[in-house]
């Protein structure tokens, strides 16, 4: 885990759920490289069964997963009183998915492939905290 700020602050921590291992690993690495603390899970049930990152304030979840989809996962978290912000990612276009995602309480829907740092910016906004200054580009 890369910690660039030396803090293990739950407010910097992101929970990532995706059933595709390559996506999970690469996005985790990207977020860590930008200074976030990341807890990743291969399925919604794995996250719900874990309490390691219960203090995280940001959830990034894939929509389409085998046993439980991302919208259902957020509904479960809300039921249990989780107050954080959530971003839905999807590789499958559905015309009403964005509407459903917003209604379910997601802050944004991001479509795969994720080929720019839009997600990083969104997470920073969600956490109400700019990502660590990056010398290659102006701080947002």
């Amino acid at each position, binding site marked *: 885990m890369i910690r660039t700020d030396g803090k293990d602050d739950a407010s910097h921590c992101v929970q990532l759920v995706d059933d595709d291992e390559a996506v999970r690993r*690469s*996005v985790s690495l990207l977020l860590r*490289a930008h200074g976030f603390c990341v807890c990743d899970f291969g399925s919604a049930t794995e996250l719900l069964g874990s309490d390691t990152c219960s203090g995280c304030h940001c959830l990034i979840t894939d929509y389409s997963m085998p046993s439980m989809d991302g919208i259902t996962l957020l509904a479960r978290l809300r039921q249990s009183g989780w107050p954080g912000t959530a971003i839905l990612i999807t590789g499958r*276009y559905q015309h009403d998915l964005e509407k459903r995602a917003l209604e379910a309480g997601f802050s944004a829907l991001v479509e795969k*492939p*994720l080929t*720019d740092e839009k997600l990083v910016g969104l997470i920073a906004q969600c956490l109400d905290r700019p990502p660590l200054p990056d010398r*290659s580009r102006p701080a947002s």
Partner: protein
Amino acid sequence: MTNNGRAGQRGLAISAMGILPCRQPMDFKAEDEAMEGPENQRPMAGRVGEPSVDQLLRFIDCLENEAILMLDEAGCITLWSKGAQQIKGWSADEVLGRHWSILHPAEAIAQGRPDHVLEIARTEGHYFGEELRVRKDGAEFLAQVAIHTLRDLDGNIVGYGKVVRDITEWQRAQSALQTQEDHLRSILNTVPDAMVVIDERGIIQSFSATAERLFGYREDEVVGRNVSLLAPSPHHEAHDGYLARYLATGERRIIGIGRVVSGRKRDGSIFPMELAIGEAVKADGHRLFTGFIRDLSTKQDVERRLQDLQDELIHISRVSAVGSMASTLAHELNQPLTAVASYAMAAKALLDADRPDAAAEARQALADGIAEAVRAGQIVRRLRDFVSRGETEREIVGLTKLIEEAAALALAGASLRGVRVETNLDPAVMRVLVDRVQIQQVLLNLIRNAVEAMEGCERRDLLISTAAVSDEEVELAVTDSGVGISDEIAERLFEPFNSTKAQGLGVGLSICRTIVEAHGGRLWAEPGPEGGTVFRFTLTRMDRAEQQDVR
């Protein structure tokens, strides 16, 4: 004319019933005595207001095309008209008083024909017939003969009146006409086009044998009915209008032009046909229209077209399968593309952070990104393989992997809610010799069919299984717990374009069978052990060492 002294028998009496012979001039005032009288007394004048006998005889002599003669009760000739002389060659003097058998050919005489004919006339009162007679010169001719038995007022037979017409020419013309008609009919019955003749009102006048076969009606069922019977809507309703417009305006829209239209058979089925119409004006000024119809839906044509399309269909089927899989593949591509970009961006961020261990981590991230790019490339290649028509490329393939991949593809897009999928693979069967893409296409089709067959069923169990049949052969089976297939559908299951589903996997099944058979295997369907359907097909095994060497 009086050479035999019996000329008085030529006396004629006119009555409302026709010509009656008398032995003496008629005495109209004493009819009961009229049969006897002095010989040679000839009635020169009839009753007032009626023609004289002489006039009647002259009239009879004027009839040149009919031989008119009379016989006495024994069959001897008593009257011989000029027409008789003209037709038969003898003069009256030569034949009067002689037995009428001289008019018959020798063969007829030998058979007793003359007496037999008179016997019929006596019994029936008359005789009509067409038979051979001879002329004086011995030539035979075909005669139309009418004989009436003549009786006196007491009903006694006094002789026979006879009219003979030479119908040789007429018969010849008739026969020539018949031959011509038979010839024409035989031609019309053998031309592949069906023919329907209608009059100006659209009423069917004739209906050829080919038309009977094509439309399923017998000629006697449709003659007299409106031809619109054979046309589907909207032509069915409008046909009378078409005819009326043509007769009124003379504007030709189909007559002499021909076009492709739809026809309606007796069973209601509609078929494409080529229609050409000819027009004929009859002697009375009315018209007849003859429709020449060629069936464009004949089995032969369809089969030939299907044969032409077979290769293309395989291609189309794949393209459409790809169409339905497009979102799945897009999703699959999105994953590695996301990973590639994320690894690359992470590597950049790590290097930018300029920390001691960043370079090693960035290198690892880039290596992982390259691996994901390779994965994306594989997906693209798989798509290309699937779409490309390509020649069969057989290779030895692991059966388990082949089945798992096909099942994953087939089940990816399907609505799987409530479907329990089970595989039961024979561990002895490891390898098969196949075109991987084609056989996966077969499996994909069968699995999707199975899932669709179970839609709406309470129990939805899908079983994919393999079993070794022999060292050379393995049988694959896709079993569903659906409602099964009716016998009627089962019969036609593998025919192209046969499908019970709107989306239609019928083409798929026919292609599946084609693919399996091209691999030297068989594909068939049978009822499942607990309802539902099992599709089974066989493939060539490559499990023995020497088989693998043969590759």
